[in-house]
């Protein structure tokens, strides 16, 4: 080679200043980088594999009816998981989502049935109460600077107690709702879509995820939520009002819990103060399996939707295969551990 510059040598003008080091990486490191860029691929792969596996085991699994049943079963917890995702993206956790949901369903039911308030207004008041519960969590976290875990552990108990107080520990029965407040059961109503039977609750869940996806990825607010979860001090120094962002996150999460409450009335068919007792932990499960990092700032909002579906698919598939219920729990447990282990591994890339 001579030293004279060869004008024909490909010299992209952009590349003349671009010299990014490319190390040759092993297959494992390449996988790590791929998952780092697309963290949602982990749950997607798990979902596809489990669909294939259960489809092979039980022939009924792939029927439109069964698949739509799975959607119906995960609709309420999936909606809650959307709220949970927002909080976890800010490196927090919300243990109160389940209690908020049940309490709001009681508030909506009581206002509409026992206080004779027009149903649409009762629903709006319920949504407002959802914002208030989130506002309380948000205030405790931002003003008193309490850790979100402790804050929501406290409010979980408080909301549970209020739930029993407001309901008088009594269930509003399905017939009563049909007669006096049928609108409350809206999200339990079914419709046909090419052989699949879906409920409006499923549509609500998908809609909530779609709106959140837009807000988190396409708006300044979304970028700020990620920045606050990623590194709150850096975000504050970069000029973000982190308290305001956190308040908005908790309040929106509260409103989504209230939507889930409305949806849950349709799912159960009645207003029961003792329903969905484990839904807060189930929502966290969906978020973690969905690849959102518990340390905040990482993961796609669509992950928890897939995470909720994975849990639904496992439950349905194992049931169809005639496996004891305890193995559903067993499988879910391992899924959580594997999901978090994978997250830790992916995060190592930055160090």
């Amino acid at each position, binding site marked *: 080679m001579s030293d004279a510059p060869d004008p024909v040598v490909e010299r992209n003008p952009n590349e003349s*200043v671009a010299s990014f080091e490319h190390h040759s990486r092993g297959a494992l490191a390449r996988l790590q980088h791929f998952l780092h860029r697309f963290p949602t691929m982990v749950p997607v792969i798990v979902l596809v594999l489990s669909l294939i596996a259960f489809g092979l085991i039980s022939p009924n699994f792939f029927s439109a009816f069964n698949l739509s049943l799975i959607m119906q079963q995960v609709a309420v917890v999936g909606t809650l998981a959307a709220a949970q995702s927002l909080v976890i993206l800010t490196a927090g956790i919300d243990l109160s989502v389940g209690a908020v949901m049940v309490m709001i369903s009681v508030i909506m039911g009581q206002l509409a049935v026992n206080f004779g308030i027009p149903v649409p207004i009762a629903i709006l008041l319920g949504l407002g109460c959802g914002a208030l519960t989130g506002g309380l969590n948000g205030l405790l976290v931002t003003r008193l600077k309490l850790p979100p875990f402790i804050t929501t552990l406290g409010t979980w108990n408080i909301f549970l107690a209020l739930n029993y107080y407001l309901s008088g520990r009594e269930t509003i029965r399905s017939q009563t709702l049909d007669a006096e407040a049928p609108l409350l059961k809206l999200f339990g109503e079914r419709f046909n879509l090419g052989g699949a039977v879906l409920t409006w609750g499923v549509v609500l869940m998908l809609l909530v995820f779609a709106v959140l996806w837009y807000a988190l990825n*396409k708006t300044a607010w979304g970028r700020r939520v990620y920045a606050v979860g990623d590194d709150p001090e850096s975000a504050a120094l*970069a000029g973000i009002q982190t308290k305001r962002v956190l308040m908005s996150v908790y309040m929106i999460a509260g409103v989504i819990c209230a939507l889930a409450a409305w949806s849950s009335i349709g799912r159960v068919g009645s207003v029961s103060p003792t329903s969905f007792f484990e839904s807060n932990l189930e929502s966290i499960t969906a978020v973690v399996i969905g690849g959102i990092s518990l340390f905040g700032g990482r993961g796609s909002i669509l992950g928890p939707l897939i995470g909720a579906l994975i849990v639904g698919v496992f439950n349905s598939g194992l049931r169809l295969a005639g496996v004891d219920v305890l193995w559903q729990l067993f499988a879910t447990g391992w899924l959580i551990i594997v999901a978090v282990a994978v997250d830790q591994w992916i995060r190592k890339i930055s160090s």
Partner: protein
Amino acid sequence: MTQPLLTARNLVKRYGRVTALDHADFDLYPGEILAVIGDNGAGKSSLIKAISGAVQPDEGEIRLDGQPVSFASPLEARKAGIETVYQTLALSPALSISDNMFMGREIRKPGVMGKWFGMLDKPAMDKFARDKLTELGLMTIQNISQPVETLSGGQRQGVAVARAAAFGSRVIILDEPTAALGVKESRRVLDLILDVRSRGIPIVLISHNMPHVFEVADRIHIHRLGKRLCVINPKEHSMSDAVAYMTGAKLPEGVAA
């Protein structure tokens, strides 16, 4: 002589019993690089935080262009055109270069989508970020949407400086910009600093690295025991003089003990 652009007089900041700033003064002239040096605990970071709005002084006055200002937050200082590159860089590692450059001042799409639905104008943001990095000779980064955590230390520093240079219309403050960098990368950042000055924007440089300070600074502000001890010209003093003043081993001329 020209008027100073940014001045501080008699700044006092106490943390409980500790007096971090004890009637400290500060002057920055247009178009200069002013280095601020001082021993650990001398209060230079408190001084810088007061100027950049991260801390509110208990007493004293800060003037920008002769007008008294008081910044309640870094956001307000930024609005006044004072940009700070913190030692921690204040970048969000998981977000992209372009997201980081626009953190807190994103561009929205024109029309209904931007106004009512808050949609970001990503193409415009990416283009601006790319232009700014190229301007500073920092386009060693191919993908403007790659997360900051995948960049090297020098590249991250470059992104943070580019962000400050892109928006800092009046003053840019750099806190220990070369502390975490290797020789080559430090060189890059120093060139970057000189480049920013050549655009007429004055720079406040906080550093422990004497060779770097003496290489780029026009004047050196020596901070000691919570106040300004003196300002020296690096051409008339040696590094060992500066270190002696800083540590109190020697007193500069004209300063009473």
